[in-house]
């Protein structure tokens, strides 16, 4: 129990942040017209590629001779980057079509 309490106390700012972010997410999405569901989902998908930051940190702080960590970290960066670049690019492609015939 003490562990839990101290974990909570030392991370309480983050816990606040998480809770606010949850409400923010709900608030932002709630009034979306159906035509934008697909681009929005795709855009949100690209943002979830933010996990790449963690992957960069893994590679960046791995010992230079720890090939095991480097290799997996490298893979994680590649996967995350595909998610990010592909996600934003495909969203842009969809939205481009909406714009064209204005």
């Amino acid at each position: 129990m003490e562990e839990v309490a101290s974990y909570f106390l030392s991370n309480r700012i983050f816990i606040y942040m998480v809770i606010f972010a949850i409400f923010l997410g709900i608030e932002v999405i709630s009034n979306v017209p159906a035509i934008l569901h697909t681009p929005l989902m795709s855009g949100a998908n690209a943002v979830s590629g933010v996990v790449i930051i963690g992957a960069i940190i893994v590679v960046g702080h791995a010992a230079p001779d720890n090939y095991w960590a480097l290799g997996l970290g490298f893979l994680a960066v590649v996967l995350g980057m595909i998610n990010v670049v592909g996600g934003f690019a495909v969203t842009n492609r969809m939205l481009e079509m909406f714009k064209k015939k204005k």
Partner: protein
Amino acid sequence: MSNFILEISYLIGAILFIVGLKKLSHPDSARQGNSIAAAGMILAIIATIFFHKDASGHGIGNLIWIFAALAVGTGIGYLMAKRVQMTAMPELVSVFNGLGGASAMTIASVEYFTNGSTAYGFLSVLFLSLVIGAISFTGSIVAYGKLAGKVKDISSNALTILNWILLAAIIILIIVAVFNPTILGGSGILWLLLLLSLVYGVLFVFPIGGADMPVVISLLNSLTGVAAAFAGFLYHNQVMMVGGVFVGSAGLILTILMCKAMNRSLLNVIIGSFGGGAVAGGGEKGEQVVKEIGITDAAILCGYASQVCIVPGYGLAVAQAQHICNDFEKQLESRGVEVFYAIHPVAGRMPGHMNVLLAEADVPYPKLVEMDDANDKLPNTDVVIVVGANDVVNPAAEDEPSSPIYGMPIIQAHNAKNIIVMKRSMSKGYAGIQNQLFFDPKTRMLFGDAKDSLGKLVSELKSM
């Protein structure tokens, strides 16, 4: 100082994510929103590379590895996004999402071996990131397979029960692992959790019907966000946390909105697999007959109508008929016929997918009428042409409580004066249920490939 720059960049990055997604939810600012969110991501990545320091003050090393990986990922991601057919886009989003999950899973396992901390908080966050990332990874890949038609629906009660057992096992294992990290000796528990989660991801999506894949992808997208947020907790990294949680909650809301559009609950989608053989729904269909119509008659019917409504479905997309459909519409308009498209919220493979496809074919935005408005206009419509749509015009959703789609809002094509259904064959729709509309006395069937039929209609209209 560099820490200050990093934190400020993260703050700005997080704000850009939120503003970006906010703008993405309005048609006029959507494109700008996408660019803003992308700018936030670039800022966060660059700031991390140049200003991140670990606990002992070392900056980011192994830059060659990092830049090489960024270049490879950019190349692959960009090419995939550019080359994909717009019809295959839902599959692609699913694949991207799965890769994000795989990334979270990978860094969690590396962190397990390089960090070595056994603090409860650290371990629980690490295992959650690992498990959720892994489920999202294999789940998305199976969802991709289903959308691409490579994986068949398999559902049985045994599978549902097995899934619950697996899920319970994973949760119990996480709890055990947090308090007894070495219970299986060394890293055994990590591998077991990883394996179970990967298997669960597959089995979780397996029994869910293909028609429900958009909901599943949106849910998995939300899960990847949560996995990223937990990974952010590992590094006390705010931009990962805010971005991840934000996507997690936004994705969940989007998932619920999609379920609402089909009038089903999320739990119902996940547990009750759709349109299995169990539901017969209207067993006395043996004597019903369908009436066919030829190209010429169809062309005359449309050409001399005053208002025509086109109901596009995924069949139109599969046949790549959106462009010829646009020609057909123009041909009718040149004869003074008023034409509009009735778009069901879940037409296509994802909500809004049909709008994207028709926009690609240059159909003007005001011609796309949303379901409720379309239903108001339909009783005054002379001809409804259903192109490759099925379940979204099935009247059983309104008047047959035993039907699995009962309660789903539909486009009331049956209210129009005449109905032409373009279809390859009499096969059932994606939900696997029979459609009474085809047997309606006002309905004529035009069998054949949608693109082919529309092409013939266009030339017939031209010669009229």
